[in-house]
Structures are given as structure tokens and as C-alpha cells.
């Protein structure tokens, strides 16, 4: 059984899943580079958890293919599961086990001897800051502790690919920061594929992003390219009356809309939605300067954020997506 060394970490082609009359995935095509941190975004019901379940071997695709490290998840499922770590959205463990026992139980599924299992469990407990409660039964863990334990168990087998379904959902800001830091440390050595509703976490750490809705991938690209391609606004700042300038701008062929905003610190602003960013950057400053009673201050592109991109692509179907 060969592994294709040049294969992407994860690749799906036409991945489709029907649950009776409901289509959860309708031909999902994504390609995740090896060693990357890959954000998988989508509103509620878009198919993220279904896609993760198929990759983890919990569900079977109705059509299409899914490969992890070049291995077919259906035909070579056992080998795939030796190479992945998986954390579901609401991790469940045996309440009667302690944290350490849970990790050691997980470790024994992998080709590690008893000494390696114990050492690895200690490492993972340190990594997720649960060493102090390792001997406590999981029934007494908080939601955040359970989530951190979930990350630890997903890493027990030294996975090539880490699949995380909403890893930060049950965590406070400090906990989210720790999880993000863990993901940063894995960059390059382990591919991290995670779904989330928290856009700020994606912006902070992801190398690439795929935005999914209604079971299809709407866009996949590197984070920087995704944001750059969505720059369609200029903000011009000046001292003076905004309405005559806004009226002038609206007559320009490269302008879609010009919206004056409230004054701040004595400066007026007009937000300009443009069709041609380059033409606008050349022509807007001289147009503003041409007004005698106006003092021009600046004209710069508005930095888009991921939320705007996301809402634009999904048609505003944000579900419970959070900006922060």
C-alpha cells in the first residue's frame, strides 16, 4: 500500500452526501496543502461537520472522493485513521476515566509501547495545561478543560493531519488564544484543518481558507489573496463640506456609490464603493482637491475583513458566525 508523497494533505473531488432527501454536501472540491493551517468556514448547516465526519471515517460519501495524505478515506480508512487526529465539536469521553487515563487509552490505539504512551500523555497534558488536573475524573471537568483534553487526545498519535470541528467554541478568550498558539506550533509539521464560526481566529492563524455554503465550496484561496481580491472601497478624508464632493463622485463611471460619514476629529469622510480600484485611486484625489473650500487629507483603500468577504460570498447567510 503506497502513499503518494506529493499528494495534498486533504483532497476532495465532487464529494457528495445525501441524508435521505437532504443534501448535506453537493460536490465539495477542496485541496489542502501539506503543513498548512486551513480554515474551513461556513454558516450553520453548510456541510462542514459532514465533510469532517467523512474525512474521519464516521460517515460514507454518497458520491465523489476524499483523500487524506493520498489515501482514500473509504477504501483505506484504517490507515487514514492511523495518520489523523480528530476532535468533534462537543467532545465526549468516559466520565469515570481521569484525563491521564483518557490519553493513555487513546495512545494505546497507536503503535506506541507502554513507556511511549505514558511519556506522550505527559507531554500532551503539559501542552494543554491540564497536568494539574490529570488525575481528576473527566466527569468533573469544565467544558473548556474537556475541549483542551480533546485537542490533547487528537495529538496523541502524532497525526499528519489534525481535523478539528469548532475547536474554540467552548473556550474563553484565554483558552482560544492557547488553542491558536498550539495550532501555530504545529504549522509546517502537521496539517491543521479546522472548521470555525469565529472569523477572527481564522484571520489570525489560517494560511488558507475555504468558504462553504449549501454543501459546495464557494471560494478557496490563501488568506492574503482572498482579502486583496475583495478590495472595492476607498475612504477619502478631508476638511470641508462632503455633499458637493459626494455628488461629483457619484457622476464618475468608476464609482458605484459614495456615502458621506459622520465627522470625526474635525475631518469628514466619504466611503466610496468603486468598480475600478486603480482608476479610483488615480482620479479621486485630484477631484477632491479641485473643490476650493476643501482641504484634502488622505485617500486610501478600505482594508476588507473576512466577515465582509464571508457575508458577500454566502449572501448574508451568516448563521451564528461571529466576527470576534
Amino acid at each position, binding site marked *: 500500500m503506497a502513499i503518494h508523497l506529493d499528494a495534498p494533505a486533504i483532497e476532495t473531488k465532487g464529494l457528495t452526501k445525501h441524508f435521505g432527501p437532504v443534501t448535506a454536501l453537493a460536490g465539495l472540491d477542496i485541496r489542502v496543502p501539506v503543513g498548512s493551517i486551513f480554515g474551513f468556514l461556513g454558516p450553520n448547516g453548510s456541510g462542514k461537520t459532514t465533510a469532517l465526519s467523512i474525512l474521519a471515517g464516521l460517515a460514507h460519501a454518497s458520491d465523489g472522493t476524499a483523500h487524506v495524505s493520498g489515501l482514500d478515506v473509504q477504501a483505506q480508512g484504517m*490507515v487514514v485513521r492511523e495518520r489523523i487526529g480528530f476532535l468533534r465539536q462537543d467532545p465526549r469521553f468516559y466520565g469515570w476515566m481521569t484525563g491521564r487515563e483518557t490519553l493513555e487509552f487513546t495512545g494505546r490505539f497507536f503503535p506506541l509501547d507502554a513507556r511511549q504512551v505514558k511519556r506522550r500523555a505527559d507531554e500532551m497534558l503539559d501542552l494543554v495545561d491540564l497536568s494539574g488536573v490529570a488525575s481528576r475524573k473527566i466527569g468533573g471537568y469544565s467544558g473548556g478543560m474537556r475541549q483542551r483534553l480533546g485537542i490533547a487526545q487528537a495529538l496523541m498519535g502524532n497525526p499528519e493531519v489534525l481535523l478539528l470541528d469548532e475547536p474554540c467554541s467552548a473556550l474563553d478568550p484565554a483558552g482560544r488564544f492557547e488553542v491558536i498558539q498550539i495550532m501555530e506550533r504545529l504549522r509546517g509539521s502537521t496539517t491543521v484543518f479546522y472548521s470555525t464560526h469565529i472569523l477572527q481566529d481564522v484571520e489570525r492563524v489560517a494560511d488558507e481558507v475555504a468558504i462553504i455554503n449549501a454543501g459546495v465550496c464557494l471560494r478557496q484561496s490563501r488568506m492574503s489573496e482572498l482579502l486583496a481580491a475583495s478590495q472595492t472601497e476607498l475612504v477619502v478624508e478631508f476638511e470641508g463640506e462632503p455633499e458637493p464632493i459626494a455628488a461629483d463622485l457619484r457622476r464618475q463611471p468608476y464609482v458605484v456609490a459614495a456615502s458621506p460619514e459622520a465627522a470625526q476629529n474635525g475631518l469628514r469622510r466619504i466611503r466610496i464603493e468603486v468598480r475600478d480600484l486603480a482608476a479610483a485611486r488615480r482620479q479621486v484625489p485630484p477631484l477632491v482637491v479641485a473643490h476650493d473650500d476643501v482641504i484634502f487629507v488622505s485617500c486610501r483603500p478600505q482594508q476588507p475583513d473576512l466577515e465582509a468577504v464571508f457575508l458577500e460570498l454566502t449572501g448574508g447567510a451568516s448563521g451564528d458566525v461571529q466576527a470576534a
Partner: protein
Amino acid sequence: MESTIARPRPIQATTSSRFAGAGNVFQKELREWFRTRRFLVTAVLTSLMLGAVPLVVFLHQGGLHDGRVDSGYRGVMNAWVALTLTLGAYLIVALTMSIIVKEEDGGTAQWIFTKPVSRSGYVLAKYAANVVAVVLGAVVIPSLVLLALTGATQSGGIQSWTAVVQTMGFASLHAAIVVGLVVGLSGLFRSSAPIAGIAIGMGFVPLFFNDLVPQQLTNLFPVEIGNIASQAVRGDHLAPWQPVVCGIALLAVSLAFACYRIERRQLQ
């Protein structure tokens, strides 16, 4: 500083055995019986239930005044078989009806199935561990308590250890078949109520239809192993082994069916 969680990647793919992870699941399952005190409660309750029988006979025969009694041995032995195979069967169903369903409902099955573990191995390991626990806790230990008290209260002591060993063997086999039936039904149903209902029903139905259907047909039900156990404890010649053979066949079919269904079950 090098990350403690980075390591060189393996170059070659590994292969895994057909029952990968089964040993780990078996250990976990047994540990759960002891750590949750389910084994202790089962052993104590069934020991109290069975241990009461020779004590009641002893008291009824005036043992408190006269010491060890001369009669009642056969009654004690018959009660041992009856209680172990009927009330014992209900207890076994109650103890095991959720062994697979609760893991799927609770999400722990989904957790385990994302590890390199064979689902068939998982099913068989859970079966094996629960049989060990049930046989020890609901058959062997309580039976030993009953036998110890019988030996202490009956003037003739235990009349035939061969019969006792045979009886415990049949009772253990019956327990193993009941657990297997429950596991098989878990492949069909995803809630414990129908599992319990059918498993218990298969224990009772033959008793109701004893007069209506030929003996050969009722012998197909595992509860008829009770008849063989009764014959064994009386030291009678053992009847045809049809119930035993059918019981083992039912066990094999149940486990194979459960493995087949759970291999294909989709979870999310």
C-alpha cells in the same frame, strides 16, 4: 526550541490487523465494570439473592435448633438453577442492553471510531469483556456463595461436584448467549427498549408455548439450556444437546450480524 509535538513523518504506510484496537477496548470495558462499581453491585445483589436460598431452607428445617439439616438439598439445587437462568437472565439483559447503544448516544463510539480501531474488533471486545464480567459477577461468584452456604447447612454437603461444575458451565454458556443476543439486537436497534424487550421475550416465550408447540421447536430457544442445567444438577442423564447447539449458533449469528451492521453504521 523544537516543538515537543513535531516528529519525523513515516514514509511507508502501515497495515492494521482485522481486530485492531480490540485488546484496548476489552481492557477499557472490564475496567469500567470495576471502576463504576457495577461489578460489585451485581455480585453482591445476586449473591444475596442466591445465598438466601440455602439459608431459608436451613431456617425452615429448624436448623437453628438442630444444626445442619438432612433435607432440602434438591430444592436448593433446583432453586439455584431456576434463579440463575431466569432472574439471572433478566439481570444480564438489564446490565448489558445499553453496552453499544449508550456509547453511540453518548458520543464515545464516534470518538473511538476515529481511531485506528476495527469496528468488528470493537464489537467483539465489548462482548467478550461483558461476558467475563457477567459470568463472574452474576453466575460464578453468587453460585459459589450458594454452594458454600449449602455445604455449611446441609449435613450431606455438596453431593456431586461434577454436577455442580456442569451446571455452572451451562449457566455460564446461557449467560454468554444472552449477552450475544443483546449485542446482536444492538446492531438492529438504536435504543435499548426494543433490545431488552426482545431479549427478555425470547426467554419467556418458549415457556408460554411449551404446551402448544413441539419440544423440538422450543429447544431452539436458549432458555431451554435451563432444562439441561436442571438435569445436570440432579445428576440425571443429559438430554439431547439441541438447545446448546442452537444457542451457540444463535450466538455466532448474533455477533456476526452486529459486526456487519456496526461496520456500516454511519455516525456524525
